[in-house]
């Protein structure tokens, strides 16, 4: 009797669950593969603002953002970048015109190549304020790697990065000697998960970068490490790596205060 009932029940239950699970499975594949239409956001920005940017109206602040994902505003739930947020802070006095040439995942080498491209000459020449966010991906390679010669690798990459940074600033200055350059420092997105050893590398990286940045004229280093230290939960976006809207807000406010003074 017992045997007769068990098998049909097992069979029916499993067939029903198989059907349900299969539909759920197909559902999850279709959800994760739906199409996106936001390729190359940076390029649209160039086309949209370039004319006004080049007209070089004295009442308009021409803001150029160069760099990686943090420059492009990745993780910002409001979809703004540092430029738009900066624009909101100053637009009562005068207008801000932003061009964002950031490309996610850029390392210093790629930014250097981009800065040297002829197509961007005019933009660089006409910019009043240049915000640079670069180096995060250079350093991330080390922080994520599990190689044994952490320090050897670190020294090599830091040296290359500093050389690239020098060439980037040099290239910018060659084309435009008056603009204010702002470099956005690195924060620690991993919190306490980052080992002390690697945290030391991050601090050293920021220190060396700041030392170099401060040796140029009209160039300033904006630290972000301290901003994020106790606010990781609020300042990091859902991917736990890039800043959230609040994080960008904090960075932009500090940047604004550094350049314009505290009101």
């Amino acid at each position, binding site marked *: 009797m017992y*045997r007769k009932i068990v098998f049909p029940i*097992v069979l029916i239950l499993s067939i029903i669950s198989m059907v349900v699970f299969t539909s759920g*499975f197909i559902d999850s594949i279709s959800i994760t593969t*739906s199409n*996106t239409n936001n390729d190359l956001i940076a390029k649209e920005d160039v086309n949209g603002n370039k004319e006004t940017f080049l007209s070089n109206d004295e009442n308009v602040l021409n803001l150029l953002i160069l760099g990686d994902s943090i420059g492009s505003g990745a993780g910002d739930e409001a979809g703004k970048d540092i430029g738009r947020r900066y*624009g909101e802070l100053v637009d009562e006095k005068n207008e801000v015109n932003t061009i964002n040439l950031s490309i996610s995942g850029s390392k210093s080498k790629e930014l250097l190549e981009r800065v040297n491209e002829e197509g961007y000459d005019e933009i660089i020449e006409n910019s009043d304020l240049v915000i640079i966010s670069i180096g995060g991906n250079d350093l991330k390679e080390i922080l994520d790697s599990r190689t044994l010669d952490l320090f050897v690798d670190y020294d090599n990459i830091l040296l290359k990065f500093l050389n690239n940074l020098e060439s980037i600033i040099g290239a910018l200055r060659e084309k435009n000697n008056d603009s204010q350059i702002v470099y956005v420092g690195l924060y620690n997105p991993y919190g306490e998960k980052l080992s002390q050893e690697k945290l030391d590398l991050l601090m050293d990286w920021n220190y060396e970068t700041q030392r170099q940045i401060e040796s140029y004229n009209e160039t300033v280093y904006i630290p972000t490490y301290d901003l994020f230290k106790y606010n990781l939960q609020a300042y990091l976006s859902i*991917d736990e790596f890039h800043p959230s809207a609040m994080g960008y807000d904090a960075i932009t406010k500090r940047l604004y205060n550094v350049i314009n003074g505290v009101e």
Partner: protein
Amino acid sequence: MITLVRNEIYKMILRKKVILIIILLILFVGLFSYGENYIYNQRINAFLQESNQSNYSWENIANQRLERLKENLESAYIPERGIKSIEIQIEQLEYFIDNNINPITPSVARFNVEFVKQSITFFLPLLIIIIGADLISGEFSEKTIKILLTRAVPRWKILMSKLIALLIMTTLIVLLMAIISTSISRVFINRLGFDEPVITGFKLVNGELSTATVIQITSLRYMLLNYSLAWYVALVMSAITFMISVLVKSMGSAIGIIMASLIGGQFLQFFLSDWGLVKYFYVTNLDLTKYLTGSYQQVEGMNLVFSVLVLMTWAIISILISFLVFSKKDVLV
């Protein structure tokens, strides 16, 4: 054929493995859900002590956030892709506030999702190994293979019936997991939360997490998505376990081999970012649920479809090898 399958299922049930699995599930779900509730209560207490407030008001925080989001939406600077993500967030928050749902309190639905996520890489495969590792090797060690093979049935039919029975039992285990973790966690967690909204559909575009395709679904559906992916992983694991069980004669070594590959595979993931070959190993692809949450991934080119295909290839090859080996094998007992 159906008689053979029925016999195999009775064998599995009579071996009391299913009871072991149920006990394990009850034990783990009980511990986890109790722990989750305990930690939540501790956090609230700590918050109250620090802030010197008499009660914890999440409504204020949620309302504040809602207003900020609405302000953002009116700003002219927002591109198309941002609007969609904000609208979803606003919708979600409004829903929470309107229905008096605290987005921080644990719920049964959220516990289910969390439990699947935690168990998909190790605990679930372990359950499958418990039920599948002695499927064929057990017949050898108990010397019952003689009786089985002397029947007037071709070998492949015997093997096929065992495979079908294993797949049926695997499906039941995932179903059991859903039933047990829903009912047991209900004891410790007071909220069901099946109709709460969840956002999913994150995508990696050019190494960036894209929110352009994010959609909002109910917790129940989200739970189903997670269990479906777990089911797929369980099927693949049963195919691999099946092959090992055919290849090895003792049940102990069958379990040992699979466990070693699971643990070794977790170690191999450390090299994932530098060593491209690792992403074709099955253990690396077991964690399918991470593609739903969009948690940050290091490897470009790894997405749900990729992992599903890699796992499928492993499963198909495992089954092919099982049949080839079993039909040619000399049985000396």
